[in-house]
Every structure is written in C-alpha cells, then in structure tokens.
C-alpha cells in the first residue's frame, strides 16, 4: 500500500443561485426568501460595488494612499454580513467593505485609514464591527477571545434570540497559513466557542496562488481541528447567507465553531499598489467574470421575479448619489492635528509622553507666524 493517495477531485460547493441566475435547492440549506429581500440584497451588492469602485477611483485621483478592493467578493461579504444578528460581532480583515456596509459602518469612516487620516478610526463596539486588521490572521485570535467573553457572559445557548451571540471571524486563503489562524482553530475547538471562521478564498494572496498555501481544500482543514467545515459558492449571495445563518445559529446555540470557505475570486488587484498582470492570466479573470455575483442576481430578478427596469434605475441613481457623497466626504476628511498622535496612546497618559507632546508643541510654536 501507499500512504500517499491520489489527491481527490475538487469537492462540490453549496450553491443556491447558479451563475446563470437559476435558483437551485440544496437539501441541507433550504432558504425561503421573499422577492423584496432579494431586491434588498441586490441593492446591498450594487452599492457596495459602487462604493468600492469609488475607493479605487479616489486612490487614482490621489485622494487615498491605498485602496484594497473587494471587487468580485461582494456576495461573500454581503451574504455573511446579512446573516448576522445585531448582537453578533464581526472581526474583519482590511477588505471587508461589504460586511462593514451590512453593519451600518459609514463607508467614509472606512476611507480614513486608506487616506492616512486615522489608523482605524471607529469604535468596534458601536456597530459590533471590529477595526480592520492588517496583520494577517491576528484578528481570528481576537475573535476567539471575544467569543470566550461571550461564553463567560452567559450569552450562548440560552435560547433567547436577542441574547445569544456569535462571532464571525474573517480571513483569506493566504492567512489560512498563519500560525494565529491555526491557533484560533485550536482555541475555538477546545473551548467549543461560538465563533464562525469565514474564509474568503479569493484564490490569490497578492501574487501567490492557492497552491502555495495548501494541498487540500481549505474547508477540509476544519476536520483536523474537530469542527465542521463547508465550502460554499462565494459568488452566490444566497448560499453565503443561508450557510452562514446556519453556522451562526449553531454557534449561538452552543454547538461550537464552523469553518466556512467562501469560494470566490479577487477580480481586482490585491491593492491599488499591485499589478496582477505580472502573475495571472486574463483568461482566468474572464472565467470568473461569468460567475459575477451581481449579474446572476440581476438575471434572476428580471427573469423569475419580474422586477422591472424602474427598480434597477432607482438603484443606479442611489449608487451615483452614494458615490458623490463618498467622494465629497473623503475630500473633506481633515488631516489630524500634528499633536493628536500623543493623545490616545494610553488611556492614562504618562508624564513622559505629556512632556514630549509639550516639547513638540513648543517647537511648532517657535516658528515665525505660528499660531499663538
């Protein structure tokens, strides 16, 4: 016998809406959803894409230092975001603009760190949406710790829908190789914690393809840690919504963690500083363009739900208005006060730092024409 078997073929993924816009049923994940809810999801997806495009445009215009586009991943993010309940907590990477949208975080707030006027800039507990985390995978451990707190607060398995709380930890295919992510899996499993790990496998970690990270489908990894893993069509907002809902429900009810692999594609560059033409073929892009998350829902709404052009015109108009608002608000974001970096280093500022701040203030004041 040989210990090394042949690698099995790519597994199926959960899909409820095909790339052609045909609704299909999955025996384990029935989803009853109204046409109005579908239209609402379409609105989310479209506005997120428009906002994201504005981010890229603002970077090109020199208004942002950098932008990390979520183009192509809107369904993976909106599906997950809309599966959350108010009390649930999200721990995003730096690309979860669609999740932020679902958590009612103002897109303009997200621009702050990319414009260079803040290093984060919002209160995670206000919308239950943690700060963007740039160090890959670090936030999965924060999610675990938060879930430990949830469990200690007695907010798991009570049956009270407004109390029981789950945590949704986002990361990508690249970060799946990080030690922190693997530690997070271990902690969540050993503690049976109410956390759902949501991996957007967008196939590329900057220039490194998925094969650099793994030789098993990523969701298979969960088995080794002792909790369920599942692959879903990350470009199908309905599959993302349905499966994440179930995983979050199970987490809230005390059944422990799940790993969801949302199989998707990063249609844009890693960030605006990246040049994907150096490492991937446009053929691949074309293949994924045919699986576009928004077009399949549009097709369904037109063909199966009889949604007329008025609706789409309305959404287009709203998109444009959003873009105008974001553009203007971004340009109006003020630079921070040069002395502000001193103020929030500590909750209790040290005398040492106060002295340093005063010294720099005096230095600034020493210039001719400085404000008194």
């Amino acid at each position, binding site marked *: 016998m040989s210990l090394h078997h042949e690698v099995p073929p790519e597994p199926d993924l959960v899909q409820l809406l095909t790339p052609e816009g045909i609704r299909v049923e999955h025996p384990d994940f029935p989803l009853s959803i109204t046409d109005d809810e579908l239209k609402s999801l379409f609105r989310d997806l479209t506005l997120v894409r428009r906002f994201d495009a504005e981010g890229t445009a603002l970077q090109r215009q020199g208004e942002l230092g950098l932008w990390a586009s979520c183009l192509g991943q809107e369904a993976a993010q909106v599906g997950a975001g809309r599966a959350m309940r108010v009390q649930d907590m999200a721990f995003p990477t730096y690309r979860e603009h669609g999740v932020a949208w679902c958590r009612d975080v103002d897109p303009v707030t997200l621009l702050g760190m990319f414009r260079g006027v803040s290093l984060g800039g919002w209160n*995670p507990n206000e919308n239950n949406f943690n700060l963007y985390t740039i160090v890959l995978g670090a936030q999965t451990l924060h999610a675990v710790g938060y879930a430990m707190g949830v469990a200690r607060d007695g907010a798991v398995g009570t049956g009270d829908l407004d109390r029981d709380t789950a945590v949704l930890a986002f990361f990508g295919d690249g970060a799946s190789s990080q030690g922190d992510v693997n530690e997070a899996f271990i902690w969540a499993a050993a503690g049976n914690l109410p956390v759902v790990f949501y991996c957007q496998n967008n196939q590329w970690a900057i220039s490194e393809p998925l094969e650099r990270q793994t030789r098993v489908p990523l969701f298979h990894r969960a088995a080794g840690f002792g909790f369920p893993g599942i692959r879903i069509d990350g470009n199908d907002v309905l599959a993302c919504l349905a499966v994440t809902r179930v995983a979050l429900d199970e987490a809230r009810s005390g059944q422990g963690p799940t790993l969801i692999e949302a199989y998707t594609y990063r249609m844009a560059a890693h960030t605006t500083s990246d040049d994907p033409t150096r490492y991937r073929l446009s053929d691949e892009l074309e293949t994924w363009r045919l699986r576009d998350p928004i077009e399949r829902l549009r097709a369904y709404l037109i063909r199966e739900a009889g949604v007329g052009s008025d609706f789409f015109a309305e959404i287009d108009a709203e998109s444009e208005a959003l873009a105008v608002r974001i553009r203007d608000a971004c340009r109006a974001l003020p630079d921070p006060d040069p002395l502000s970096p001193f103020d929030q280093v500590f*909750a209790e500022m040290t005398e040492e730092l106060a002295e340093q701040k005063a010294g720099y203030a005096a230095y600034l004041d020493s210039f001719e024409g400085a404000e008194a």
Partner: protein
Amino acid sequence: MSTANLSMAAALNAALRNRMEADAKVLVMGLDVGKLGGVFRITDGLQKDFGEDRVIDAPLGESGIIGAAVGLAIRGYRPVCEIQFDGFVYPAFDQIVSQVAKFHNRSLGQVKMPITVRIPYGGGIGAVEHHSESPEAYFAHTAGLKVVTCANPSDAYWMLRQSVDCDDPVIFFEPKRRYWAKGQVDTEASPPPLHSARVVRPGKDVTLVAYGPMVATALDAANAAREDGHEVEVIDLRSLSPIDIGPVVQSVTKTGRLVVVHEASVNLGIGAEIAARVQERAFYSLEAPVLRVGGFDTPYPASRIEEEWLPDVDRILDAVDRTLTY
C-alpha cells in the same frame, strides 16, 4: 493585621486574589495556571476559588493567549496573562506589539486594553536555554505599552494590583530568582504611584540604578562599598516605561557619578536610555561617564557559567571604582 511576612510569590498570589475578588471582569489566563497553580505557583489556589471560567488553562500557544486577551478586552474583560518563561514570550510578540500596544490608539481611545502580561524573567536559577532571559527592552521600546518590574514582595503586591487596575496594557516582569525571598507586605498601605522610581538606600558618592533582580545585588554592592568608605545611593527604577528619571537626575546632581546595572545585555538596553536622559538633564553635574554593568552581548550562556555572565557584586564594585577614579 494587615502586615505579613510574605515571599514575592505569595505576595503576587495575594495581589491576584485581591483583584479577582474586587472585579469579576479580572481573568487569569496562561499555561498550567489552573490546577498546577503555574510552574512557579504564582496562581496557586486561584482556580479552586474562582473557577475554571476565570482562571483559564490556555491551549499551548503564547500568541493565542495574548490574541485572546485582546478579544476579551474588547468584550470588556480585564485579562491577566501569564507567560511561563521570558524566552517564551516571542511567539506572542506580534500580538503584543502590533495589536495590544496599538488598539487603544487605533480605536481613537474608545476601546481600552487593560491587559496585564506577567513574565517571570532573568537568570541565576540554573535553568536550561530560553528560561533565563531579560527581554524588557523590546517592550519598553514599544509605544503603547507600560513596562514595570518589582524587586521585593511589597512592590510585587502593590505593583501587580496597580497594573491590573491600569486601563492600559502593562508588561509586568517578575524576577524569578527572587520569588522565594521574603519581606514585609502591608496590604493596607498607600503605595507609591506605579511608575515611580525609589531611592532604596541613600548615599552621597555614587548613584547606582538597578531594577528587578539586580536591586538586591546592587544593595549588596553598596554594603560592600561602604567598607571601602564609599556611600553608594541605590535607586530601584521599578518602572521601565515610562521611566521616572527625576529621582535619578536628582541623585546624580548630588553624587556626580552614575552606574546602571541590569541583567539584560547592555547594547541598547535600559541602561543606555538612562545614560542618555541623565546627560541631557544633568550634564554639568556629571564628574565621570555613566557606566553600564549588564549581561554581555552574547546569547544567555549555559547555566554552569551563568554567574560569569550575570552582573554580580564584584562587577558592580569594579564599575563603582572606575567611576570614582575617573
């Protein structure tokens, strides 16, 4: 009776117990901190009294311990993390430096990080590799962290209480070779501020700054110097970030001579920072260059020769003599 003769280990245990009783949000988390009471027994008995939910035996991963503490802090908890030995803190370095230290600032001051990271540190116990290191300078160099170290049971008790109460992250270094030395602890005293240095022995000829495990050694050196007719003033720095430089400057203004001693390697250590600040503020008081006595710039040696590497009374006296004869 509020005064007791306690070992440093017992004082630390009492401080943790006191804070856990006072605040239900205080959690203790680390490796073997539960039934075993920690490899040094600092958390002895706490799990029995406060339960497994508040005294948490963590899965074996230091990054996990600190990363989870961040999430707990976001949720409103006040975690006290134990890193088992100095040389095992590095897997958690990213979480401490990139996450813990920055989170309050990144949230525009809206989320506090009241995390205490206890680290037994330093050598002199005949240990194997990675169990005798002094990594304090790495943390003192990082904006957003507060770094302190105790030298006696009373400070151990009060400084740990103050660290747990602090709304900012505190890296709390415990001199493991002094764990079993006893001293009076008054649990109803009014302690000095956490970030204050203290003159522990007055003198007029030379200022000797030490902290943590080296304070006792410095006091021994001062006693020996008296036999040679030199009055050495010993200052226990206590806080490594921020540094309370005032008492040091005041002392040097009087003595004109300064020796700084620590176990950590001298290169870019706390001693370098003390020397820089003193020459900035007391240049005209100095009668001799500031001297540093510390570990050599080699990896911590095999334990059979660690006494050669660690500063001792003779190496301190040698520096005292050099500064006096400059």
